[in-house]
Protein backbone atom coordinates (compact mmCIF):
# COMPACT_ATOMS: atom_id res chain seq x y z
CA UNK A 1 0.00 0.00 0.00
CA UNK A 2 1.22 3.50 -0.78
CA UNK A 3 0.36 6.74 0.96
CA UNK A 4 -1.62 8.81 -1.49
CA UNK A 5 -1.74 12.57 -1.17
CA UNK A 6 -3.69 14.70 -3.62
CA UNK A 7 -4.14 18.45 -3.67
CA UNK A 8 -6.85 20.50 -5.39
CA UNK A 9 -7.72 24.19 -5.58
CA UNK A 10 -10.43 24.72 -2.98
CA UNK A 11 -12.97 26.19 -5.44
CA UNK A 12 -12.51 23.24 -7.87
CA UNK A 13 -12.63 20.78 -5.03
CA UNK A 14 -15.81 22.38 -3.69
CA UNK A 15 -17.62 21.93 -7.02
CA UNK A 16 -16.69 18.26 -7.12
CA UNK A 17 -17.49 17.78 -3.45
CA UNK A 18 -20.99 19.13 -4.00
CA UNK A 19 -21.69 16.46 -6.60
CA UNK A 20 -20.22 13.78 -4.35
CA UNK A 21 -22.41 15.01 -1.51
CA UNK A 22 -25.41 14.82 -3.87
CA UNK A 23 -24.51 11.19 -4.65
CA UNK A 24 -24.25 10.32 -0.95
CA UNK A 25 -27.61 11.99 -0.31
CA UNK A 26 -29.11 10.00 -3.18
CA UNK A 27 -27.56 6.77 -1.86
CA UNK A 28 -29.09 7.46 1.56
CA UNK A 29 -32.59 8.27 0.29
CA UNK A 30 -32.56 5.26 -2.06
CA UNK A 31 -31.57 3.11 0.88
CA UNK A 32 -34.64 4.32 2.81
CA UNK A 33 -36.79 3.66 -0.27
CA UNK A 34 -35.37 0.19 -0.82
CA UNK A 35 -35.70 -0.95 2.81
CA UNK A 36 -39.23 0.45 3.07
CA UNK A 37 -40.35 -0.99 -0.27
CA UNK A 38 -39.05 -4.49 0.47
CA UNK A 39 -40.71 -4.53 3.90
CA UNK A 40 -44.02 -3.21 2.57
CA UNK A 41 -44.15 -5.42 -0.55
CA UNK A 42 -43.84 -2.55 -3.05
CA UNK A 43 -41.89 -4.26 -5.87
CA UNK A 44 -41.88 -1.41 -8.39
CA UNK A 45 -40.50 1.06 -5.84
CA UNK A 46 -37.87 -1.49 -4.81
CA UNK A 47 -36.79 -2.08 -8.43
CA UNK A 48 -36.60 1.65 -9.14
CA UNK A 49 -34.39 2.09 -6.06
CA UNK A 50 -32.21 -0.82 -7.25
CA UNK A 51 -31.70 0.88 -10.62
CA UNK A 52 -30.80 4.17 -8.96
CA UNK A 53 -28.38 2.48 -6.55
CA UNK A 54 -26.69 0.61 -9.40
CA UNK A 55 -26.09 3.72 -11.48
CA UNK A 56 -25.05 5.95 -8.59
CA UNK A 57 -22.59 3.21 -7.60
CA UNK A 58 -21.17 3.31 -11.13
CA UNK A 59 -20.81 7.09 -10.78
CA UNK A 60 -19.07 6.71 -7.41
CA UNK A 61 -16.74 4.16 -9.08
CA UNK A 62 -15.90 6.83 -11.69
CA UNK A 63 -15.50 9.53 -9.02
CA UNK A 64 -12.90 7.35 -7.29
CA UNK A 65 -10.96 7.35 -10.56
CA UNK A 66 -11.13 11.10 -11.00
CA UNK A 67 -13.94 11.18 -13.58
CA UNK A 68 -16.59 13.66 -12.58
CA UNK A 69 -19.58 15.10 -14.33
CA UNK A 70 -22.67 17.06 -13.46
CA UNK A 71 -26.06 15.49 -12.96
CA UNK A 72 -28.27 15.68 -16.04
CA UNK A 73 -31.88 16.66 -15.35
CA UNK A 74 -33.24 13.62 -17.22
CA UNK A 75 -32.65 10.37 -15.32
CA UNK A 76 -32.43 8.12 -18.40
CA UNK A 77 -29.94 10.49 -20.06
CA UNK A 78 -27.91 10.70 -16.86
CA UNK A 79 -27.80 6.90 -16.59
CA UNK A 80 -26.67 6.66 -20.22
CA UNK A 81 -23.97 9.28 -19.68
CA UNK A 82 -22.63 7.49 -16.60
CA UNK A 83 -22.54 4.12 -18.35
CA UNK A 84 -20.87 5.58 -21.45
CA UNK A 85 -18.20 7.10 -19.21
CA UNK A 86 -17.81 3.74 -17.46
CA UNK A 87 -17.27 2.15 -20.89
CA UNK A 88 -14.15 4.30 -21.39
CA UNK A 89 -12.73 3.35 -17.98
CA UNK A 90 -13.74 -0.32 -17.62
CA UNK A 91 -15.64 -1.81 -20.54
CA UNK A 92 -16.23 -5.13 -18.74
CA UNK A 93 -17.97 -3.42 -15.80
CA UNK A 94 -19.90 -1.21 -18.23
CA UNK A 95 -21.25 -4.27 -20.05
CA UNK A 96 -22.20 -5.88 -16.73
CA UNK A 97 -23.98 -2.78 -15.46
CA UNK A 98 -25.82 -2.25 -18.76
CA UNK A 99 -27.04 -5.86 -18.59
CA UNK A 100 -28.24 -5.38 -15.02
CA UNK A 101 -29.96 -2.07 -15.83
CA UNK A 102 -31.82 -3.53 -18.82
CA UNK A 103 -32.60 -6.88 -17.20
CA UNK A 104 -36.37 -7.50 -16.77
CA UNK A 105 -37.52 -7.39 -13.16
CA UNK A 106 -38.50 -10.83 -11.80
CA UNK A 107 -42.23 -11.23 -11.12
CA UNK A 108 -41.75 -13.51 -8.13
CA UNK A 109 -41.13 -11.51 -4.93
CA UNK A 110 -38.40 -13.86 -3.65
CA UNK A 111 -36.56 -13.75 -6.96
CA UNK A 112 -36.90 -9.98 -7.06
CA UNK A 113 -35.41 -9.64 -3.57
CA UNK A 114 -32.59 -12.03 -4.51
CA UNK A 115 -31.79 -10.01 -7.65
CA UNK A 116 -31.73 -6.80 -5.62
CA UNK A 117 -29.36 -8.37 -3.09
CA UNK A 118 -27.12 -9.63 -5.92
CA UNK A 119 -27.06 -6.10 -7.36
CA UNK A 120 -26.08 -4.64 -3.99
CA UNK A 121 -23.34 -7.27 -3.64
CA UNK A 122 -22.06 -6.34 -7.10
CA UNK A 123 -22.00 -2.62 -6.23
CA UNK A 124 -20.11 -3.32 -3.02
CA UNK A 125 -17.76 -6.11 -4.11
CA UNK A 126 -17.08 -5.28 -7.77
CA UNK A 127 -17.61 -1.52 -8.00
CA UNK A 128 -16.11 -1.07 -4.54
CA UNK A 129 -18.86 1.12 -3.08
CA UNK A 130 -18.59 0.02 0.54
CA UNK A 131 -21.64 1.93 1.81
CA UNK A 132 -24.20 0.28 -0.47
CA UNK A 133 -26.53 -2.15 1.29
CA UNK A 134 -26.29 -0.54 4.72
CA UNK A 135 -28.52 2.40 5.54
CA UNK A 136 -26.30 3.28 8.49
CA UNK A 137 -23.24 3.42 6.24
CA UNK A 138 -24.99 5.61 3.65
CA UNK A 139 -26.11 8.00 6.41
CA UNK A 140 -22.57 8.18 7.80
CA UNK A 141 -21.08 8.84 4.34
CA UNK A 142 -23.63 11.58 3.68
CA UNK A 143 -23.04 13.23 7.07
CA UNK A 144 -19.25 13.13 6.62
CA UNK A 145 -19.53 14.70 3.18
CA UNK A 146 -21.87 17.44 4.45
CA UNK A 147 -19.54 18.27 7.33
CA UNK A 148 -16.51 18.50 5.05
CA UNK A 149 -18.40 20.49 2.44
CA UNK A 150 -19.62 23.02 5.00
CA UNK A 151 -16.15 23.45 6.48
CA UNK A 152 -14.64 24.06 3.03
CA UNK A 153 -17.45 26.43 2.05
CA UNK A 154 -16.86 28.38 5.28
CA UNK A 155 -13.21 28.79 4.27
CA UNK A 156 -14.26 30.22 0.91
CA UNK A 157 -16.66 32.64 2.57
CA UNK A 158 -19.72 31.01 0.99
CA UNK A 159 -22.85 32.02 2.91
CA UNK A 160 -24.54 29.09 4.65
CA UNK A 161 -27.80 28.78 6.49
CA UNK A 162 -27.61 27.49 10.05
CA UNK A 163 -31.12 26.11 9.77
CA UNK A 164 -30.45 23.52 7.07
CA UNK A 165 -30.71 20.68 9.59
CA UNK A 166 -33.92 20.01 11.53
CA UNK A 167 -32.78 19.15 15.01
CA UNK A 168 -34.60 16.46 16.94
CA UNK A 169 -36.06 18.51 19.78
CA UNK A 170 -36.37 15.37 21.88
CA UNK A 171 -32.56 15.24 21.94
CA UNK A 172 -32.08 18.97 22.58
CA UNK A 173 -31.32 18.42 26.24
CA UNK A 174 -28.33 16.29 25.29
CA UNK A 175 -26.73 19.33 23.57
CA UNK A 176 -25.56 17.32 20.59
CA UNK A 177 -24.61 19.17 17.42
CA UNK A 178 -26.23 18.03 14.16
CA UNK A 179 -23.36 15.67 13.34
CA UNK A 180 -23.45 13.97 16.73
CA UNK A 181 -27.20 13.66 16.43
CA UNK A 182 -26.85 11.89 13.07
CA UNK A 183 -24.07 9.67 14.38
CA UNK A 184 -26.32 8.62 17.27
CA UNK A 185 -28.84 7.42 14.67
CA UNK A 186 -26.06 5.61 12.79
CA UNK A 187 -25.04 3.83 15.99
CA UNK A 188 -28.58 2.67 16.72
CA UNK A 189 -29.06 1.54 13.10
CA UNK A 190 -25.77 -0.38 13.18
CA UNK A 191 -26.70 -2.10 16.44
CA UNK A 192 -30.09 -3.08 15.01
CA UNK A 193 -28.40 -4.44 11.88
CA UNK A 194 -25.98 -6.48 13.99
CA UNK A 195 -28.85 -7.88 16.05
CA UNK A 196 -30.75 -8.78 12.85
CA UNK A 197 -27.69 -10.40 11.31
CA UNK A 198 -26.80 -12.40 14.43
CA UNK A 199 -30.46 -13.41 14.81
CA UNK A 200 -30.47 -14.45 11.15
CA UNK A 201 -27.26 -16.45 11.62
CA UNK A 202 -28.78 -18.13 14.68
CA UNK A 203 -31.87 -19.02 12.71
CA UNK A 204 -29.75 -20.43 9.92
CA UNK A 205 -27.74 -22.57 12.40
CA UNK A 206 -30.93 -23.91 13.92
Amino acid sequence: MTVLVTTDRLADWLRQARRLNGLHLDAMTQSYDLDGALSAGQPELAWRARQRILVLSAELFLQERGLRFDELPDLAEHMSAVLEALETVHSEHAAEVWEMVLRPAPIDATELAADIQATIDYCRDVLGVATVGSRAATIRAWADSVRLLREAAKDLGVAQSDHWYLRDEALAAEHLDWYDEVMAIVTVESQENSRTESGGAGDAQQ
Partner: protein
Amino acid sequence: MNLIRDLALPPDVASEIEQITATLSADTSCIATGSIVEGFGNANSDIDLYLIDPKRVARQSTSIGLRQSRYVDCEYLTVSYLETLADRMNGHTWTSLPDLTSRDFSRYYRLSIGKPVVVYESVAKLSESFQRSMACLAYSRWALLMAFKHLARASCCLATGLSRQADLLEREAQLWYATSVLAAEGEGYPSLKWVGEKAARRFGRDSPQYRELVDGWLRPAAGITARLAQLRSQVQLPTELMTMLQPRSCHLADRVRHVAGSDTDYLIRAGQSVAQTRGVVSVVSRRLAAGDSWAQATATVAEELSVPVGEVRVGAWMYMVPLRSAGFLSVGVAEGA
Protein backbone atom coordinates in the same frame (compact mmCIF):
# COMPACT_ATOMS: atom_id res chain seq x y z
CA MET B 1 -54.87 25.14 13.92
CA ASN B 2 -55.73 21.45 13.49
CA LEU B 3 -55.15 18.88 16.13
CA ILE B 4 -52.38 16.82 14.62
CA ARG B 5 -53.83 13.59 15.98
CA ASP B 6 -56.93 14.25 13.84
CA LEU B 7 -54.93 14.12 10.62
CA ALA B 8 -54.93 10.31 10.43
CA LEU B 9 -51.15 10.05 10.20
CA PRO B 10 -48.95 7.31 11.72
CA PRO B 11 -48.23 8.18 15.39
CA ASP B 12 -44.46 8.69 14.91
CA VAL B 13 -45.15 11.05 11.98
CA ALA B 14 -47.75 13.04 13.94
CA SER B 15 -45.40 13.34 16.90
CA GLU B 16 -42.56 14.55 14.68
CA ILE B 17 -44.77 17.14 12.97
CA GLU B 18 -45.92 18.34 16.39
CA GLN B 19 -42.29 18.92 17.39
CA ILE B 20 -41.50 20.87 14.25
CA THR B 21 -44.57 23.07 14.35
CA ALA B 22 -43.78 23.98 17.95
CA THR B 23 -40.64 25.77 16.74
CA LEU B 24 -42.20 27.69 13.83
CA SER B 25 -42.16 31.46 13.75
CA ALA B 26 -45.50 33.13 14.47
CA ASP B 27 -46.75 33.66 10.92
CA THR B 28 -45.46 30.51 9.20
CA SER B 29 -48.04 28.01 7.95
CA CYS B 30 -47.31 24.29 7.85
CA ILE B 31 -48.84 21.72 5.51
CA ALA B 32 -48.11 18.00 5.78
CA THR B 33 -47.99 16.18 2.46
CA GLY B 34 -46.09 13.56 0.43
CA SER B 35 -46.45 9.82 0.00
CA ILE B 36 -47.55 9.22 3.60
CA VAL B 37 -50.48 11.62 3.22
CA GLU B 38 -51.24 10.16 -0.23
CA GLY B 39 -51.49 6.71 1.35
CA PHE B 40 -48.55 4.99 -0.38
CA GLY B 41 -45.93 5.61 2.25
CA ASN B 42 -44.18 2.80 4.11
CA ALA B 43 -42.32 2.58 7.42
CA ASN B 44 -39.26 4.30 5.93
CA SER B 45 -40.98 7.00 3.87
CA ASP B 46 -39.91 10.55 4.55
CA ILE B 47 -42.13 13.11 6.26
CA ASP B 48 -42.79 15.92 3.78
CA LEU B 49 -43.70 19.34 5.07
CA TYR B 50 -44.26 22.64 3.32
CA LEU B 51 -43.54 25.65 5.49
CA ILE B 52 -45.12 28.73 3.97
CA ASP B 53 -43.93 32.23 4.71
CA PRO B 54 -46.22 35.22 4.07
CA LYS B 55 -43.20 37.36 3.07
CA ARG B 56 -41.98 37.62 -0.50
CA VAL B 57 -38.67 35.88 0.15
CA ALA B 58 -38.39 32.54 1.90
CA ARG B 59 -35.93 32.27 4.76
CA GLN B 60 -34.31 29.28 3.03
CA SER B 61 -35.22 26.64 0.43
CA THR B 62 -35.08 23.28 2.18
CA SER B 63 -34.03 21.56 5.37
CA ILE B 64 -33.64 17.94 6.36
CA GLY B 65 -33.58 16.06 9.64
CA LEU B 66 -32.79 12.41 10.22
CA ARG B 67 -34.82 10.35 12.63
CA GLN B 68 -34.90 6.67 13.47
CA SER B 69 -36.32 4.83 10.42
CA ARG B 70 -37.38 8.03 8.59
CA TYR B 71 -36.17 11.47 7.65
CA VAL B 72 -38.01 14.78 7.58
CA ASP B 73 -37.93 16.89 4.45
CA CYS B 74 -39.08 20.52 4.77
CA GLU B 75 -39.49 22.85 1.84
CA TYR B 76 -39.93 26.59 2.41
CA LEU B 77 -42.33 28.38 0.07
CA THR B 78 -43.82 31.86 -0.05
CA VAL B 79 -47.43 32.92 -0.48
CA SER B 80 -46.56 34.93 -3.59
CA TYR B 81 -44.97 31.86 -5.18
CA LEU B 82 -48.09 29.81 -4.43
CA GLU B 83 -50.31 32.46 -6.03
CA THR B 84 -48.20 32.39 -9.21
CA LEU B 85 -48.09 28.58 -9.27
CA ALA B 86 -51.86 28.29 -8.86
CA ASP B 87 -52.47 30.81 -11.67
CA ARG B 88 -50.11 29.02 -14.05
CA MET B 89 -51.47 25.56 -13.36
CA ASN B 90 -55.18 26.49 -13.25
CA GLY B 91 -54.86 28.49 -16.46
CA HIS B 92 -52.68 25.99 -18.31
CA THR B 93 -53.28 25.07 -21.94
CA TRP B 94 -51.64 22.42 -24.09
CA THR B 95 -49.31 25.05 -25.46
CA SER B 96 -48.27 26.47 -22.07
CA LEU B 97 -47.49 22.98 -20.71
CA PRO B 98 -43.84 22.88 -21.85
CA ASP B 99 -43.12 25.92 -19.64
CA LEU B 100 -44.17 24.06 -16.50
CA THR B 101 -41.60 21.99 -14.65
CA SER B 102 -41.63 18.72 -12.78
CA ARG B 103 -41.25 20.71 -9.55
CA ASP B 104 -44.32 22.83 -10.40
CA PHE B 105 -46.46 19.69 -10.78
CA SER B 106 -45.04 18.14 -7.66
CA ARG B 107 -45.74 21.18 -5.49
CA TYR B 108 -49.21 21.85 -6.93
CA TYR B 109 -50.37 18.26 -6.42
CA ARG B 110 -48.82 17.96 -2.98
CA LEU B 111 -50.51 21.18 -1.93
CA SER B 112 -53.83 19.92 -3.29
CA ILE B 113 -53.69 16.83 -1.05
CA GLY B 114 -51.86 18.50 1.84
CA LYS B 115 -53.16 18.33 5.38
CA PRO B 116 -53.11 21.75 7.01
CA VAL B 117 -51.33 21.57 10.34
CA VAL B 118 -50.95 25.28 11.05
CA VAL B 119 -52.53 27.62 8.53
CA TYR B 120 -52.70 31.41 8.67
CA GLU B 121 -55.17 33.48 6.69
CA SER B 122 -52.95 34.26 3.70
CA VAL B 123 -52.47 30.53 3.05
CA ALA B 124 -56.03 29.51 3.96
CA LYS B 125 -57.35 31.90 1.30
CA LEU B 126 -55.28 30.05 -1.30
CA SER B 127 -56.33 26.52 -0.41
CA GLU B 128 -59.19 26.42 -2.94
CA SER B 129 -56.76 27.34 -5.71
CA PHE B 130 -55.10 23.92 -5.43
CA GLN B 131 -57.48 21.27 -6.71
CA ARG B 132 -56.56 17.61 -7.01
CA SER B 133 -58.69 17.18 -10.15
CA MET B 134 -56.80 20.00 -11.88
CA ALA B 135 -53.49 18.53 -10.70
CA CYS B 136 -54.40 15.16 -12.26
CA LEU B 137 -55.58 16.70 -15.54
CA ALA B 138 -52.50 18.89 -15.99
CA TYR B 139 -50.11 16.12 -14.95
CA SER B 140 -51.74 13.64 -17.28
CA ARG B 141 -51.13 16.01 -20.20
CA TRP B 142 -47.60 16.88 -19.17
CA ALA B 143 -46.68 13.22 -18.61
CA LEU B 144 -47.90 12.45 -22.14
CA LEU B 145 -45.57 15.16 -23.45
CA MET B 146 -42.73 13.65 -21.41
CA ALA B 147 -43.54 10.22 -22.87
CA PHE B 148 -43.31 11.68 -26.37
CA LYS B 149 -40.01 13.43 -25.63
CA HIS B 150 -38.50 10.15 -24.43
CA LEU B 151 -40.00 8.22 -27.33
CA ALA B 152 -38.53 10.77 -29.78
CA ARG B 153 -35.05 10.43 -28.32
CA ALA B 154 -35.34 6.62 -28.17
CA SER B 155 -36.23 6.56 -31.88
CA CYS B 156 -33.31 8.83 -32.76
CA CYS B 157 -30.89 6.72 -30.70
CA LEU B 158 -32.07 3.43 -32.21
CA ALA B 159 -31.84 4.78 -35.75
CA THR B 160 -28.26 5.92 -35.18
CA GLY B 161 -27.01 2.69 -33.61
CA LEU B 162 -27.31 3.55 -29.90
CA SER B 163 -29.54 0.60 -29.07
CA ARG B 164 -28.93 0.37 -25.30
CA GLN B 165 -29.59 4.07 -24.84
CA ALA B 166 -32.72 3.63 -26.98
CA ASP B 167 -33.83 0.74 -24.75
CA LEU B 168 -33.41 2.80 -21.59
CA LEU B 169 -35.21 5.82 -23.06
CA GLU B 170 -38.07 3.67 -24.37
CA ARG B 171 -38.65 2.22 -20.89
CA GLU B 172 -38.69 5.70 -19.41
CA ALA B 173 -41.19 6.68 -22.14
CA GLN B 174 -43.35 3.69 -21.11
CA LEU B 175 -43.16 4.82 -17.49
CA TRP B 176 -44.26 8.34 -18.44
CA TYR B 177 -47.07 6.95 -20.59
CA ALA B 178 -48.30 4.82 -17.67
CA THR B 179 -48.06 7.92 -15.48
CA SER B 180 -50.20 9.87 -17.95
CA VAL B 181 -52.84 7.14 -18.15
CA LEU B 182 -53.00 6.84 -14.35
CA ALA B 183 -53.25 10.61 -13.84
CA ALA B 184 -56.17 10.68 -16.28
CA GLU B 185 -57.74 7.96 -14.09
CA GLY B 186 -57.33 10.18 -11.01
CA GLU B 187 -54.00 8.72 -9.79
CA GLY B 188 -51.93 11.86 -10.21
CA TYR B 189 -49.31 11.62 -7.46
CA PRO B 190 -46.40 13.21 -9.33
CA SER B 191 -43.55 10.79 -8.83
CA LEU B 192 -42.39 8.06 -11.21
CA LYS B 193 -41.30 5.76 -8.42
CA TRP B 194 -44.90 5.27 -7.22
CA VAL B 195 -46.38 4.15 -10.57
CA GLY B 196 -46.73 0.55 -9.38
CA GLU B 197 -48.64 1.53 -6.25
CA LYS B 198 -50.88 3.88 -8.25
CA ALA B 199 -51.70 1.16 -10.81
CA ALA B 200 -52.32 -1.37 -8.02
CA ARG B 201 -54.64 1.00 -6.14
CA ARG B 202 -56.58 1.95 -9.26
CA PHE B 203 -56.91 -1.43 -10.96
CA GLY B 204 -55.76 -4.09 -8.46
CA ARG B 205 -52.46 -6.00 -8.59
CA ASP B 206 -53.92 -9.00 -10.39
CA SER B 207 -55.70 -7.01 -13.10
CA PRO B 208 -54.68 -6.96 -16.78
CA GLN B 209 -54.67 -3.13 -16.68
CA TYR B 210 -52.07 -3.20 -13.89
CA ARG B 211 -49.88 -5.66 -15.83
CA GLU B 212 -50.18 -3.58 -18.99
CA LEU B 213 -49.16 -0.36 -17.23
CA VAL B 214 -46.28 -1.88 -15.28
CA ASP B 215 -44.75 -4.58 -17.49
CA GLY B 216 -43.90 -2.22 -20.34
CA TRP B 217 -41.11 -0.55 -18.40
CA LEU B 218 -40.42 -3.15 -15.71
CA ARG B 219 -40.13 -6.31 -17.79
CA PRO B 220 -40.54 -5.56 -21.51
CA ALA B 221 -41.03 -8.74 -23.53
CA ALA B 222 -40.70 -7.59 -27.15
CA GLY B 223 -37.66 -6.19 -28.95
CA ILE B 224 -36.98 -2.48 -28.96
CA THR B 225 -38.21 -1.87 -32.52
CA ALA B 226 -41.59 -3.51 -31.86
CA ARG B 227 -41.91 -1.71 -28.54
CA LEU B 228 -41.26 1.66 -30.13
CA ALA B 229 -43.88 1.00 -32.80
CA GLN B 230 -46.40 -0.04 -30.15
CA LEU B 231 -45.68 2.99 -27.97
CA ARG B 232 -45.87 5.31 -30.99
CA SER B 233 -49.43 4.17 -31.57
CA GLN B 234 -50.32 4.99 -27.95
CA VAL B 235 -48.54 8.31 -27.38
CA GLN B 236 -50.54 10.70 -29.52
CA LEU B 237 -49.98 14.38 -28.81
CA PRO B 238 -52.82 16.72 -29.73
CA THR B 239 -52.38 18.72 -32.91
CA GLU B 240 -52.08 22.05 -31.12
CA LEU B 241 -49.09 20.84 -29.13
CA MET B 242 -47.38 19.23 -32.14
CA THR B 243 -48.03 22.42 -34.10
CA MET B 244 -46.19 24.35 -31.42
CA LEU B 245 -43.24 21.90 -31.18
CA GLN B 246 -42.65 21.47 -34.92
CA PRO B 247 -41.83 24.97 -36.20
CA ARG B 248 -38.99 25.61 -33.75
CA SER B 249 -35.87 26.23 -35.74
CA CYS B 250 -32.13 26.66 -35.32
CA HIS B 251 -29.06 26.95 -37.54
CA LEU B 252 -25.28 26.97 -37.17
CA ALA B 253 -24.20 30.21 -35.51
CA ASP B 254 -21.90 32.65 -37.29
CA ARG B 255 -18.30 31.48 -37.60
CA VAL B 256 -19.16 27.90 -36.61
CA ARG B 257 -17.72 25.19 -38.86
CA HIS B 258 -18.70 21.54 -39.04
CA VAL B 259 -16.04 18.82 -39.36
CA ALA B 260 -17.29 15.32 -40.10
CA GLY B 261 -15.60 12.24 -38.61
CA SER B 262 -16.22 8.50 -38.75
CA ASP B 263 -17.81 8.05 -35.28
CA THR B 264 -17.75 11.59 -33.98
CA ASP B 265 -18.30 14.92 -35.68
CA TYR B 266 -17.06 18.29 -34.46
CA LEU B 267 -18.39 21.83 -34.43
CA ILE B 268 -15.71 24.52 -34.15
CA ARG B 269 -16.47 28.05 -32.99
CA ALA B 270 -13.66 30.06 -34.50
CA GLY B 271 -11.06 30.85 -31.86
CA GLN B 272 -13.33 29.86 -28.98
CA SER B 273 -14.47 26.28 -28.48
CA VAL B 274 -15.01 22.85 -29.99
CA ALA B 275 -17.99 20.53 -29.51
CA GLN B 276 -18.06 16.79 -30.20
CA THR B 277 -21.29 15.39 -31.56
CA ARG B 278 -22.70 11.93 -32.22
CA GLY B 279 -25.83 10.25 -33.47
CA VAL B 280 -28.76 12.33 -34.62
CA VAL B 281 -26.99 15.56 -33.62
CA SER B 282 -24.19 14.79 -36.08
CA VAL B 283 -26.48 13.93 -38.97
CA VAL B 284 -28.69 16.99 -38.49
CA SER B 285 -25.63 19.24 -38.03
CA ARG B 286 -24.20 17.94 -41.33
CA ARG B 287 -27.36 18.98 -43.14
CA LEU B 288 -27.40 22.39 -41.44
CA ALA B 289 -23.73 22.88 -42.40
CA ALA B 290 -24.63 21.99 -46.00
CA GLY B 291 -27.07 24.91 -46.02
CA ASP B 292 -30.37 23.18 -45.25
CA SER B 293 -32.90 24.96 -43.09
CA TRP B 294 -33.90 23.19 -39.85
CA ALA B 295 -37.12 22.00 -41.49
CA GLN B 296 -35.28 20.66 -44.54
CA ALA B 297 -32.49 19.10 -42.47
CA THR B 298 -34.82 17.27 -40.09
CA ALA B 299 -37.13 16.14 -42.90
CA THR B 300 -34.18 14.69 -44.84
CA VAL B 301 -32.73 12.99 -41.77
CA ALA B 302 -36.15 11.58 -40.85
CA GLU B 303 -36.39 10.01 -44.29
CA GLU B 304 -32.84 8.66 -44.19
CA LEU B 305 -33.33 7.15 -40.72
CA SER B 306 -36.93 6.00 -41.31
CA VAL B 307 -38.08 7.84 -38.19
CA PRO B 308 -41.23 10.01 -38.11
CA VAL B 309 -40.21 13.60 -38.74
CA GLY B 310 -41.92 14.86 -35.56
CA GLU B 311 -39.74 12.53 -33.51
CA VAL B 312 -36.54 13.68 -35.25
CA ARG B 313 -37.48 17.33 -34.70
CA VAL B 314 -38.23 16.89 -31.00
CA GLY B 315 -35.38 14.43 -30.34
CA ALA B 316 -32.73 16.45 -32.17
CA TRP B 317 -33.98 19.68 -30.61
CA MET B 318 -33.55 18.23 -27.13
CA TYR B 319 -30.12 16.76 -27.82
CA MET B 320 -28.97 20.08 -29.26
CA VAL B 321 -29.77 22.09 -26.10
CA PRO B 322 -26.08 22.18 -25.00
CA LEU B 323 -25.04 23.37 -28.49
CA ARG B 324 -27.54 26.22 -28.36
CA SER B 325 -26.51 27.14 -24.82
CA ALA B 326 -22.83 27.23 -25.77
CA GLY B 327 -23.42 29.37 -28.87
CA PHE B 328 -22.77 26.75 -31.58
CA LEU B 329 -26.35 27.05 -32.79
CA SER B 330 -28.63 30.06 -33.04
CA VAL B 331 -32.39 29.89 -32.70
CA GLY B 332 -34.11 31.06 -35.87
CA VAL B 333 -37.56 32.24 -36.74
CA ALA B 334 -40.32 29.71 -37.31
CA GLU B 335 -40.38 28.27 -40.82
CA GLY B 336 -43.06 26.47 -42.71
CA ALA B 337 -42.13 22.81 -42.40
